[in-house]
């Protein structure tokens, strides 16, 4: 078909008044689901990293062992945040109301103290990700030390 004919057909189609079904509408919960999926993906990649380190018998080296621990702590962190986002964003059974710099209240469905307690713990997610980063740093430090030692011994 000649290009001129094609262009004419497109112009006719565009000029016709009709609904644009091709573009899907996105609801409000879509963002949190994508975020949760991102956490799951991040968690699975950390699981994969742990198994890969294990399968290659790298755990004999302290550096890789520490990196494996970092992956483990990131898995815990992901589980922590998945649960927290599930409770406050997805099913909205709990929320925090800040009263002042030192005071807040956790509003839970049916005033469940257990749910409030769990949520309070889940909000302290840095207890997982900060150690994970510490392990990552320590692991790299060990690998660097080993590498320097190897280079020195190779260099005589």
């Amino acid at each position: 078909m000649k290009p001129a004919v094609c262009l004419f057909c497109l112009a006719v189609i565009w000029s016709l008044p009709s609904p644009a079904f091709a573009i899907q509408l996105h609801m409000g919960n879509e963002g949190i689901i994508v975020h949760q999926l991102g956490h799951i993906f991040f968690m699975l990649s950390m699981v994969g990293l742990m198994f890969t380190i294990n399968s290659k018998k790298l755990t004999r080296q302290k550096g890789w062992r520490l990196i494996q621990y970092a992956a483990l702590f990131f898995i815990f962190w992901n589980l922590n945040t998945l649960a927290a986002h599930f409770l406050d964003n997805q099913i909205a059974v709990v929320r925090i109301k800040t009263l002042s710099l030192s005071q807040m209240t956790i509003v839970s469905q049916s005033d469940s103290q257990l749910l409030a307690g769990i949520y309070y713990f889940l909000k302290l997610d840095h207890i997982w990700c900060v150690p994970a980063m510490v392990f990552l740093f320590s692991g790299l430090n060990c690998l660097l030390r080993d590498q320097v030692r190897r280079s020195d011994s190779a260099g005589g």
Partner: protein
Amino acid sequence: MTANLPILLVDVLGSVAMVVLGILSIFKAKSLRDQDPDNAVFLYLLWICAGFTIFAISRSFSHILRQFLILTGSGDIWHTIGPYTGAVNTISFMLVGTVTLFFNQSWRINEKILSAKQKQEDTSDKLLELNQTLEQKVVERTEMLTSSEHKARRIFEHSLDTIVVTDPQFNIVEINKAGVALTGFQKSDILDKKMGLKDFLTVTSEQEKILRLLETHEYILNEETDFLRADRSCVRVLITGGVDYGAFGCGKTFHFIIKNINDKKQMEQQIAQADKLAALGELSAGVAHEINNPLGIILGYTQLMLKNPGEHEEDLKTIEKHVKNCKIVVSDLLTFSRKGSTKMQPIDVCKVVDDVISFLGNHSDFKNVQMTTPGPCTGPLTVFGNEQELAQVVINLMINACHAIEKTGRILVETGTDDQGQVLITVKDNGTGIREKDFSRIFDPFFTTKPVGQGTGLGLSVGYGIIRRHGGDIIARNRKEKGAAFTISLPRAEAAHDNPDREKT
């Protein structure tokens, strides 16, 4: 109501700690990579750290901002920008997750790099080792090569047989000292004039045979042929040779070993001649003995009849004359075959030669012949023998020489000694020389080249018999210039007298 401070502190401090740890991890990973820039796993770790740091910064920023806005009562603003920071957060940890998935690939790439590096190092080590030992190896090989070359050169130079190297056209490219001596040419002449093997092989049939064998079999083994020397004399040689296709870029060549067998051949001929003459001597002795008695009776009766001459006086005288001739022949035959009686004593060869020259100087046949000696005979050249017989031999040789120069020319008589102390008498003429085909027969009884009736053919054979009985030898050869030469060799008197077999009767 619940305490907000722990959550707030953990959130803010944790966020700051995450950022700090992320940045420190990047530095560590970078240092690690600097240690080994080719390591793909270290590059992977650098990417992971970068991902975690981006994630930490994004997350910490949003957390601190959130706390700040809520605490300052600006919750509405947070509600506005919260989704954006959340989205950036999501992207950042998905990025980390994605990078993490490439660990396996990074590991495999790194293993390949390490393997290639190892191979390169191994090759480098081998090259280094080779390089370090190369000089030593070169020295060792050079020594071996020099030693080998020296041995080969010594064999080539000091071989008593001729060694010749030729190009494919059989032009000589190398020849040893023995070869130079055999040919009689200067080595430079042989090489500069590009003389070929064909120049020395004069007998066409033998040359063709040798070349044909070389073409078909590429080698020859103990081929006997005549070898022409620079002085135009020929020697008998054995040639062995073969092709060499060369190495290290050298061209095809032929190598020959040429053995001079001339002396051996001559000796073989002389032995054969001696055997033949010995057999003839035995035969002649028997015949002469049987004929001698009847001849004596015929001569006796003839002389008795001549005491009363009658009408047959002339016939009787003819019979007497021819019977006497027969007696002389028989006497010569007996002398040749050693059947005659001789008296042996020390004699001076110089005196014998001088007497012969003096005697023959008065002979009419030697009127136009110049008989010379190189100088006064420096004696004493004493041999043990019979003076008359020796003089007879020399006279026979001189008469033969006189006939060879057709009674006009020059005869040279030399006396002296050789390296073994043998006394030599040589009679040389400038006549026509001896034909090649006659060499093997000249000492045979009754062999003569003179016209019928002019010679009995017993002179040389009788002379040969006399000299052999004296423990000596006669050798005939053609001179380089012109004519023939006969050399008598006799043992000195002391040596001859020590041997009791020498005194014959």
